[in-house]
């Protein structure tokens, strides 16, 4: 077995987050701004194959209601220090299938402090979700930070139980000159599963360190070099840890005042058990565009990712969000989240997967504060058997989910 696990429990993380936040908050009350934006949502949902079963006779048709409460608590001081705390509770109740009820909790927090030539940031997230929702990645039209797009799902949504996940991500950016800067980022995940069948999903920690060098090439283009390293450590007596090292190079370019492109390409080597290693091409292309009535985010990424399968995998991912305001009160959104995952390690509890979720959403601003959202999602999951499993063919499942939300957001300004 590998190195000692990075022991970090919830209490110590909260204390650490709190201490850093208090330490960076100014003592003066001048130019401080607090904002509190609550959002309350109630809705109805129907899913014709909620457990993504490949067999028709095992499909679960769920109909129920949804409650969600979220608050964005924002603090800023003269553009120097800002802090965001975002707790969210999501409750799903299915009167005819109460065994699928779930209460999911999310906490996002981000602290940013800017000095004369450097910026320090600290992100702490905590999620506690049912396995059925946690292990199925969902398209999200509201996502703003590409780093928040999850890539750690296994597709094993037919299991009972819960998943808890901590994410701790400090970063430091230093401006070397007018045209160049360096940045160091640590991304630490600690994921654990409760009340599941042993051996189906495995607790793990996953730590990645990125070192970036960025240099301005022209008024519209920056060159970027990234050196990356990671350690994936499954909490299992048989499975080995995976260490990886890689390098990427690329650029970001402003194609127009409202359109931005980032492209990176590189390689990453992943150490395996018994002296083996695997070298893979990695990279990403990200396009963002914001017009008067249109907002677009599109990203293709090829990366080595870790999850509860007990090993890392090579994942090609496509994320696209498109929002368009149709008139003063109605907007439409399209979302695509798709991936193809291929196991790298010799031992894994799951096989290769192809996943596609297509989302379409219509939003009606009845008033500035009261909003109705209609959402449809079509999901396809193809699963190959895990390595070593014989006599099982590839399995394909699909589901249709439609939901209707009634949203009360008294202090949130519509984005489009």
């Amino acid at each position, binding site marked *: 077995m590998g190195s000692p696990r990075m022991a970090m429990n919830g209490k110590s993380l909260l204390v650490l987050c709190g201490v850093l936040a208090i330490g960076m908050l100014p003592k003066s009350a001048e130019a401080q701004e607090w904002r509190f934006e609550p959002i309350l949502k109630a809705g109805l949902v*129907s899913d014709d194959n909620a457990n993504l079963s490949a067999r*028709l006779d095992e499909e679960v*048709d769920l109909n129920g209601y949804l409650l969600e409460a979220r608050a964005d608590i924002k603090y800023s001081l003269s553009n120097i220090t800002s802090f965001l705390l975002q707790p969210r509770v999501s409750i799903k109740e299915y009167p005819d299938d109460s065994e699928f009820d779930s209460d999911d909790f999310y906490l996002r927090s981000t602290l940013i402090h800017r000095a004369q030539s450097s910026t320090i940031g600290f992100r702490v997230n905590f999620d506690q979700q049912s396995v059925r929702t946690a292990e199925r990645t969902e398209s999200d039209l509201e996502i703003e930070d590409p780093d928040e797009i999850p890539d750690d799902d296994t597709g094993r949504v037919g299991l009972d139980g819960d998943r808890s996940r901590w994410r701790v991500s400090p970063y430091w950016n230093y401006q070397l000159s007018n045209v160049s800067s360096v940045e160091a980022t640590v991304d630490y995940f600690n994921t654990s599963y409760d009340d599941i069948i042993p051996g189906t999903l495995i607790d793990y920690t996953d730590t990645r360190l990125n070192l970036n060098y960025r240099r301005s090439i022209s008024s519209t283009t920056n060159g970027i070099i990234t050196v990356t390293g990671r350690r994936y450590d499954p909490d299992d007596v048989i499975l080995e840890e995976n260490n990886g090292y890689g390098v990427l190079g690329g650029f970001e370019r402003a194609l127009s005042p409202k359109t931005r492109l980032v492209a990176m390409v590189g390689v990453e080597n992943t150490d395996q058990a018994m002296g083996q290693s695997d070298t893979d091409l990695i990279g990403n292309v990200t396009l963002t565009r914001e017009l008067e009535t249109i907002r677009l985010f599109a990203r293709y990424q090829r990366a080595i990712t870790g999850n509860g399968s007990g090993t890392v995998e090579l994942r090609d991912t496509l994320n696209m969000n498109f929002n368009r305001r*149709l008139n003063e009160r*109605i907007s439409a959104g399209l979302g695509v989240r798709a991936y193809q995952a291929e196991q790298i390690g010799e031992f894994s509890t799951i096989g290769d997967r192809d996943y596609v979720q297509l989302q379409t959403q219509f939003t009606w601003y009845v008033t500035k504060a009261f909003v109705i959202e209609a959402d449809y999602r079509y999901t396809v999951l193809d699963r190959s058997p895990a390595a070593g499993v014989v006599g099982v*063919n590839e399995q394909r499942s699909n589901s249709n989910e439609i939901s209707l939300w009634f949203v009360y957001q008294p202090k949130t300004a519509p984005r489009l």
Partner: protein
Amino acid sequence: MSRSASLFAALLLMVVSSSALAQDIRYSWFEISYVVQDVDKDASRTDVLIGQTADISAQDGDGVKFRGSLGTWQNFFAFVDFNSSDIDVDALVTNSQGQFSAGDEFDFTAIRGGVGYRWPLSPKTDVYGALSFDSTDLDFGIIANENFDTDDNGIGAVAGFRTMFSDKVELRANVRYTSVGDVDLTTGEFDSDTLIGIGFGYELIRGLSITGDFESGEFSSFNIGFRLDLDED
């Protein structure tokens, strides 16, 4: 809620008051549709070792279709077409114990992606041609120990026209060739087919249209849905 009901509910949301402006023929859009798919194929497999014959009859079904197009450099455009349907299938198994019938569904998936070029004949009428990579997949699972699954990839080509019949109404027609448009389910071998399609679009509100298409061939289909323009006016 069934797939049909889900799509119907989604379509109802689209019935909103129209205040459309005059529009040109657009090549950057995304479309989601409810599709009725006809397969209508029979197959038979015999296992001489166990003395059993499995006969299946694939019929019709329904599903969803997603299509997208992106106008690119000059008059070129790129497109993708994803069709996923659940098709009814009847099975009759004959062996020494007698005859046993069963009914089930199978997954029919057709994916196309490619590039095309348009020639404007007038400000309101285009003809176009496109080449594509086509994939067709019929996933039955195991029926009486017989595996009828089959899939193949090939090439396709389409030629058609689009015209703005009025400011709000678009009419279109096409002829499409695909090398994976027909299948012999007994052998699993694919064959080519030529399909003829017609369709319409009606702009409900600026940037949003209701759309319908019918395509006739070995795998005929009818779909109705809505289209969202990806470009600003």
